[in-house]
């Protein structure tokens, strides 16, 4: 009996991976390509040599930062879809510093990163205030603010930030070297500073959620804002602080894209990494410890499939298809697991950021009454 349920648990963990691989294989066949060659290309694209691997790490850094930020907002019960825009605003603020300040690198880089955090936090705060004060659900506020962040960055690129002699409408001029994060080596182009930041952020998020009053208040707000308020938790402040924290991390992620990956500001600078972070968090069911691991797998898929276009004339959106099916199948097998295992066991796994069965009310968030009183 015990063996059977263990086998069931293992089966249910492997099942989504298997299913999504099978479906993706079928889809590759459907567009007339060779699945083996595709998977081999993706693998090589990610792990062929240190350059390819550096590409993966360069996706992993911003993706992990976003995922950790999103774990904070999910804990507070918030669907921070606006994370993409927060990345973009972080990138914009960092670019502003990079283009306008003439400072030595040791001063300029921290200034850029701090500004990026402020930019991301402000954009997140906007979504937060729209939700808590003005009753606009964060999903809709977030989607709109994402688009608006893009509009802002395209406007800056094509207008004010063009050099007076005229330039490209597709990107700002390259930033001066002092403004950029230095790579570890020419072979392995990854920023050491960014790796250190990711490590510190990871520890801080894990510890803050486990052991601090702030984390406890976030959790209470996320599970039941009404009750939390009645127990004396400042729920609105709690929700806004989660937005700000996530915005700051997304801002760093955005700055990494402009200060290291690209070396200038481009339209759609976030490149879908924020959305991917949401998928990561759904897949790890809001457990911070697992976020870097799953983020690495996703970064490898993403980095690896960049090669497909050149090598096989295949659209790189295959990465999104594989990742999407992984998360979809994981959610479905979660449901299956809950049906197949006795409630007591299922209960302990119910750490999902989204309590199933929770009312989704697009215009009257649960905190509707609360903010009117605070």
């Amino acid at each position, binding site marked *: 009996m015990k063996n059977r349920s263990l086998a069931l648990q293992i089966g249910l963990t492997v099942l989504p991976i298997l299913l999504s691989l099978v479906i993706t294989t079928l889809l590759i066949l459907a567009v007339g390509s060779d699945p083996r060659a595709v998977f081999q290309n993706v693998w090589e694209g990610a792990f062929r040599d240190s350059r390819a691997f550096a590409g993966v790490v360069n996706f992993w850094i911003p993706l992990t930062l976003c995922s950790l930020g999103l774990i904070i907002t999910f804990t507070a019960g918030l669907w921070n879809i606006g994370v993409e825009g927060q990345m973009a605003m972080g990138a914009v603020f960092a670019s502003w510093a990079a283009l306008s300040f003439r400072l030595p690198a040791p001063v300029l880089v921290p200034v850029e990163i701090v500004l990026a955090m402020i930019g991301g936090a402000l954009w997140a705060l906007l979504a937060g205030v729209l939700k808590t004060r003005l009753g606009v659900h964060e999903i809709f506020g977030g989607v709109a603010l994402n688009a608006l962040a893009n509009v802002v960055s395209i406007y800056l690129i094509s207008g004010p930030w063009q050099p007076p002699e005229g330039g490209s409408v597709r990107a700002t001029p390259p930033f001066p070297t002092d403004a950029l994060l230095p790579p570890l080596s020419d072979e392995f182009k990854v920023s050491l500073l960014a790796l250190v930041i990711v490590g510190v952020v990871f520890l801080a998020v894990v510890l803050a959620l486990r052991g601090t009053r*702030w984390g*406890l208040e976030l959790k*209470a707000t996320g599970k*039941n804002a009404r*009750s939390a308020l009645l127990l004396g938790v400042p729920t609105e402040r709690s929700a806004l602080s989660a937005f700000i924290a996530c915005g700051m991390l997304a801002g760093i992620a955005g700055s990494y894209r402009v200060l290291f990956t690209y070396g200038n500001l481009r339209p759609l600078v976030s490149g879908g990494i924020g959305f991917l972070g949401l998928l990561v968090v759904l897949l790890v069911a809001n457990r911070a410890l697992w976020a870097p691991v799953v983020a690495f797998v996703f970064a490898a898929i993403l980095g690896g499939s960049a090669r497909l276009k050149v090598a096989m004339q295949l659209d790189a959106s295959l990465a999104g298809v594989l990742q999407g099916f992984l998360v979809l199948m994981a959610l479905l097998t979660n449901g299956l697991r809950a049906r197949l295992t006795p409630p007591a066991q299922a209960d302990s796994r119910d750490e999902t950021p989204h309590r199933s069965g929770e009312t989704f009310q697009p215009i009257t968030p649960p905190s509707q009454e609360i903010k009117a009183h605070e």
Partner: protein
Amino acid sequence: MNIELRHIHKRFGPVHANNDINLTFQGGRIIGILGENGAGKSTLMKILSGFQSLDSGEIWMDGQRVDYTGPEAAIEHGVGMLQQDPLDVAAFTVLENFIYGQRGGLSLGRKAARDRLKEISWRFGFFDLDPDTPIAQLSIGQRQQLEIVRLLSQGVKTLILDEPTTGISAEQKVVLFNALRELAHNEGMTVLLVSHKLEDVIALCDEVAVLRAGRLVGTRAMPATTRELVAMMFGQELPPVKREPVGEGLRPSPTPAIELDRAQLRGKRVTVSELSLRVQPGEIIGLAGLEGSGQEALLRACVGLIKPQAGRIQLCGEDVTGKSYRHFLRCGCAFGAAGRLEEGLVGGLTLTEHIALVNEYQPVVDWNRARRLTQEQLKQYNVRGRPDSRIETLSGGNQQRMLMALMPPKPVLMVLEQPTRGLDVDSARWIWQQLLERRATGTAIIFSSPELDEIVTYSDRILVFYAGRVTEIPDASRTNIDELGRLIGGHSDGAAQ
């Protein structure tokens, strides 16, 4: 219609809710189903009306064995049940609600339905059911009337009513009882009344069946005295709750616990104007009234959850008008809302996390200390649960005791919305014991309840709300349930003053 229940069994996990019940109900009679909370009476009625399936047993109607699943099938067999919170749709109009569930073609047939609604409702004296009013604007009493009309229109021959007199006014009760007598005695229907209110049962029923702990204790014909019925329900007579009258050991303090000065409070449906109230330390104020008559606005204003549109509020002499709920908490208020898991407890958090939320305020939480404190509190408040269990795994009574443990030990003022809602008699008595102990140390208490007997029993003073108007009964010991029932229905003339 004659109904016979044979050997009905129903289990919920370890609980044997119905244990070999055998009962016969005769047409043309009103039968009271008695028993304390958890005795199994609701389960039995839900089985009869199709809301719950039975584990084993048989239902016979007029000598025929019947077998059905689902409330709709029960209605087709002529059995309809009126739930305590009537099962209607708030967003529908009266007419839509009346039509929904009845057979017919694609079209609503609104004209014919309108006529039929009027015909049936007038026959029973339900004169204020306007077909075009949304359900959300009706009182519980009116919604009950609509449900009865609808069930009758669907050809029900046996009508089950679950606690129908909770939350309705004295007039609505009179209209309801007359209608039920008419249905049973003149039209030959079977009426089953589930109630724990003995005075209702004595006033209305022809016979009673008493359940205790899932078993049938017995049946008897009425009339019977309250004392006899209590003995059947509990197997013994309950000692009355000890209560010290106000002022004993407490001198009236110069600063009241809370004082409202000509406050204007906007509730969900009504606005209460020019309300002035002084509550002394150690005083218990009971708020009576139909749901949404303004009492919930006063309760919430007393803890800062709604702000007065005019007037002032003082707590212990400090002006707190317009201050936040958290400020009221800091001033020594405690608030308990009616829905425990929705308002007050956080489903998904453990007991320790709850205790930490109200005790551990430093930036880093000391979980060891919180766990020790939790263990102490669980013992002191007799909560059955482990520190690491999640709050939603506790039973209703344990949740209510946990809520008590989360409140500050010596608050200046406790504001409680329906403090014993959904609790069995024992748990309710335990809660009041706790409250009376705190009151003895000088805590003032303001509470509301749909149960008029609870209000009469425990209050020093009573405020009666009707459509935002407030009538005060300065001495609760000089009133009774009948008078309160008239007052909550809007009869203020000749009232207590």
